């Protein structure tokens, strides 16, 4: 009966209830669209970071993350291979890398470069490296030539067929030295990459660094990125912790994670502004409803309805309004974001090019992750509970004699 009472009370003034529900609904729609857009773009950036740099999880020497030198290159041992194999289908593929800074020169010119030893087929699967080729060709694992970034080529005046000489620090104090013909030139959008990267086939780079069968990192690309933490934990448990560790992309890029968190906090503040606006809509309705029904409330108390039960009726009314508003908001908001999820907004020339430069598609991606919709429900529910405290407080302080005579 109390539920019936609360429900029917809601429809005593249909127009007012409709307006209140609408204010909640529009706040929810706006919040859903905003969160969907922001989360979608964040996911785009995360995907870009994962595919261009870290992967989902990396196996490294236990000291490498804190001191990334060649001395902390890990042995690509049977133990590591077996630990990865044990993960089965959870791992889509692995990408081995050996990398380090060294000095590159041609004749009298020299400059610092970042040398990466890679398996091209695996890099292509991860980040389409070969599509950045602007001249020449990509090496195969057995080739013995280098592919260099366009900026490096320009600064050292290197062309296809020229020889690049490199000198660096090898494994355990060995001198790393080698000369390689330039077989291809790559163009990268980011100046940092375009002015420093030099690629060699993995085995050749291992020889250069005097670190055969060693890697700086073994990247794991996962079937389900959400399981990165779980996979990293399993690897840590399976591998000898004296030598190896496994880190997720979030552990490897704490600065990016912090930046995302800061932006998420800004978005949450904006979303809460929307919720608070909706909350005031409900609050206004509650104040009016309570004032109009003061005598009725007094009578209900007089005839024996306990204050706690009457407060529950009032709270239920607040919750009903919120629930209808949230459901309506989700019902309208979902098709909107789903439409943009299927057909992302194409970004114009300038903004689009920036995204392309960062290795992202020139689109504004939307997310339809269930938590976007669930969080709206929870947040509005919290607001409703807070707003619902007003009628509860009013009921508990109501002087029933005065109210009954109101």
């Amino acid at each position, binding site marked *: *009966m109390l539920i019936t009472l609360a429900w029917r009370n809601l429809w005593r003034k249909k127009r007012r209830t409709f307006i209140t529900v609408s204010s909640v609904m529009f706040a929810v729609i706006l919040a859903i669209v905003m969160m969907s857009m922001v989360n979608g773009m964040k996911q785009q950036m995360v995907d870009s970071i994962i595919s261009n740099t870290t992967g989902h999880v990396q196996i490294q020497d236990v000291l490498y993350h804190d001191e990334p030198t060649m001395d902390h290159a890990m042995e690509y041992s049977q133990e590591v291979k077996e630990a990865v194999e044990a993960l089965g289908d959870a791992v889509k593929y692995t990408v081995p890398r050996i990398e380090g800074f060294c000095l590159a020169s041609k004749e009298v010119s020299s400059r610092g470069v970042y040398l990466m030893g890679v398996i091209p087929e695996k890099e292509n699967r991860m980040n389409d490296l070969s599509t950045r080729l602007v001249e020449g060709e990509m090496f195969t694992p057995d080739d013995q030539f280098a592919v260099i970034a366009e900026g490096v080529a320009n600064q050292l005046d290197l062309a296809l067929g020229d020889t690049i000489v490199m000198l660096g620090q090898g494994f355990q104090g060995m001198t790393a030295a080698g000369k390689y013909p330039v077989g291809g030139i790559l163009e990268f959008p980011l100046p940092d990459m375009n002015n420093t990267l030099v690629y060699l086939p993995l085995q050749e780079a291992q020889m250069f660094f005097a670190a055969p069968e060693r890697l700086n990192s073994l990247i794991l690309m996962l079937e389900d990125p959400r399981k990165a933490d779980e996979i990293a934990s399993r690897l840590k448990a399976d591998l000898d912790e004296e030598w190896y560790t496994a880190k997720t992309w979030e552990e490897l890029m704490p600065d990016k994670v912090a930046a995302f968190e800061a932006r998420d906090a800004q978005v949450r503040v904006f979303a809460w502004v929307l919720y608070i606006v909706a909350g005031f809509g409900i609050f206004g309705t509650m104040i009016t409803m309570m004032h109009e029904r003061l005598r009725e409330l007094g009578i209900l108390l007089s*005839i*024996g309805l306990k204050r706690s039960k009457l407060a529950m009726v009032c709270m239920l009314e607040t919750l009903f309004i919120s629930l209808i508003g949230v459901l309506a908001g989700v019902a309208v908001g979902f098709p909107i974001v789903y439409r943009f999820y299927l057909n992302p907004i194409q970004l114009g020339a300038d903004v689009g090019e920036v995204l392309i430069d960062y290795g992202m598609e020139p689109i504004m991606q939307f997310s339809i992750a269930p938590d976007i919709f669930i969080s709206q429900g929870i947040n509005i529910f919290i607001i409703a509970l807070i707003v619902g405290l007003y009628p509860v407080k009013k009921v508990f302080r109501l002087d029933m004699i005065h109210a009954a005579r109101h």
Partner: protein
Amino acid sequence: MQTVIKTEGLSKTYTNTAVPVHALKDVNLEFKEGEFTAIVGPSGSGKTTFLNVIGGLDKPTKGKVVIDDIDIATMKESKLFDFRMRHIGFVFQAYNLIPVLTAVENVSFIMLLQKRPKKEMEQRAKEMLEQVGLSDKLNTRPAQLSGGQQQRVAVARALASRPDFVLADEPTANLDTESAFNLLDIMARLNKEENITLIFSTHDQRVIDRARRVITLVDGAVDKDEHFERN
């Protein structure tokens, strides 16, 4: 006849005014089972305060209100809610039905709070609405009823839960003559048939003429307490 309510030295002083107002002064009264009593007196004589105090809606400043051997003046509010619900029926001047409930739901409401079985509750509510001549309005909401009909529903609500007594604060004040007589007939009949103690506060001569006991309050004190033989 058994005593239903007994007041001893009942006083009520309002101190939240510029000058303290003595609304009740040393009221000593006893109400027996089945009595039909009108509390009369000029405005400000303390009629409503008296009903509020014996109904447990307000606390006396001094004195006792003994119902069922319990002094309700010392009862905690949470217990009083339960006590009122189980022992006292209320009829208010402005009907005060719950607008979103139908007539039968309004009449069932107190029984519902008492957690009576659903079948018994429905049967009793229908029976009471029949008694007050509204068997054809069971599923009608208050807004669709006339003032007289609403007050009859209020009477049915007050009596449905079989309270020890019913307090009615000027129940006929908003009714036309025909509706008022109709209501009084019903209440007089129920008073006899159900042996329910009825206590009215009223200015209405039509009510006073039907009462078998008339208590006159003046300045918060009992001025007269008269008994009449009526049919």
